[in-house]
């Protein structure tokens, strides 16, 4: 991909593979061990410049976990609540840092490189494309509201405007799907998205992160819980 980065960078392929490995092992293991923090520390060092936005995202994601944890605390399963909280935060922080600065398209490309089934890759790509385009429509509409002096309040006009907004997004999504179908017809789409790239170049950081992640998952010492 076009990466004229000056800072350490993790390839999307590596990110996808390690995310799968780390989250599966951390989620299914009986205990959490101290070495599992090692890949988080390395990624934290790699993304030291954007740690603020990473923790902001982690905080937002934790609102969902808070509901689960609260229900456990309510039933007085304190240790289980802590385990769920730590486990999910280990996984979330790892994934958020791995994919920091990457967009949905680079993940689609990574899926292709990993030779995942064509149908899965193309479904992911077209979903990503639709979300991207709908997101653009969303921000255009939001700008229109600002420009036309709309301020959301708790009144009927706001509810009507918002309902209309959702309706427009549906129509736009439908319109886009028709155009996508036309493009597929015209360009001979037969269930596969292709790539000309033969291989992915892995950097030292990819190798180092892969090594530390695997090591941290095998090194079962210093149980946290």
């Amino acid at each position, binding site marked *: *991909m*076009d990466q004229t980065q000056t800072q350490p960078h993790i390839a999307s392929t590596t990110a996808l593979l390690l995310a799968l490995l780390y989250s599966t092992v951390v989620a299914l293991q009986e205990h959490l061990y101290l070495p599992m923090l090692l890949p988080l520390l390395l990624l934290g060092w790699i993304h030291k410049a954007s740690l603020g936005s990473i923790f902001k995202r982690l905080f937002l994601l934790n609102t969902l976990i808070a509901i689960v944890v609260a229900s456990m605390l309510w039933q007085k399963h304190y240790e289980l609540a802590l385990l769920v909280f730590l486990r999910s935060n280990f996984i979330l922080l790892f994934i958020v840092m791995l994919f920091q600065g990457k*967009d949905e*398209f*680079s993940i*689609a*490309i990574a899926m292709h490189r990993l030779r995942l089934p064509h149908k899965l890759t193309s479904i992911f*790509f077209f979903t*990503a*494309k639709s979300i*991207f*385009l709908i997101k653009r429509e969303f921000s255009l509409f939001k700008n229109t509201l600002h420009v036309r002096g709309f301020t959301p309040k708790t009144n009927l006009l706001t509810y009507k405007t918002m309902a209309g907004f959702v309706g427009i997004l549906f129509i736009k999504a439908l319109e*886009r799907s028709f*155009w*996508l179908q*036309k*493009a*597929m*017809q*015209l*360009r*001979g*789409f*037969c269930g*596969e*998205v*292709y*790539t*000309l*790239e033969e291989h992915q170049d892995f950097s030292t950081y990819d190798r180092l992160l892969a090594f530390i992640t695997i090591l941290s998952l095998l090194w079962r010492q210093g149980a946290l819980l």
Partner: protein
Amino acid sequence: MSCSVNIKNLSTSRDGVRLYENVTLDVSHKEKIAIIGPNGCGKTTLLEIIAGLRPLEEGTLELFHQPMSSLDEFKSMRHLIGYLFQDSDNQFLAPVVEDDVAFSLLASGVSKEEAKLKTAMMLQDLGISHLAKKIVYHLSGGEKKLVALAGVLIMEPKLMLLDEPTNGLDQAMQLRLIDILGRIDKSIIIVSHHKEFIELVVEKIYEITPTGLSCSVNLKNESNHHHDHGNHPHSH
């Protein structure tokens, strides 16, 4: 003379409203024409009918002397027709520029090596080799248009349908497009509002009205003229 498109007495409706009737049009081999008309008059609809994206209601359509009466008949003709959408974002079927340009080649069974070579040549020809590894959705409007055009041209279609190709392009990009289209040796039908642009690209301009299609300008018969300031879009 051999004919790329031959339309006779075509009538089309949209949402129960008749857009136009008795449209008759002949586009010769390697002829470049433009269709103009007010908003909502059915210009894009006409292109979609020619591309086989919309069924024919009334009238006849022949592509390369072959009558096209149902959408299925277009399947064997797909590689001969290139269609450039008004919004380039709708056209892309792969995230990376070079993959998208090579898409139709790879889908038609061309080997990866050959597709790679042809893609590199096409990108170089259009002066966008530097974009090869970029993600299409991160490009500017003009760059997207050129990438979409490369994806159309690489299939070497005999007929190109361009829907508002200058939409969202600045003047420098328009001049680049004029240069590229001037070099293309194929039948081209352009639908556009941009009269100054099409006058520099096509030989004939047709105006679409509810009663049919009329040739409003035949630039073939007009003497070529040059200006000291170059071929910038202009009007007299």
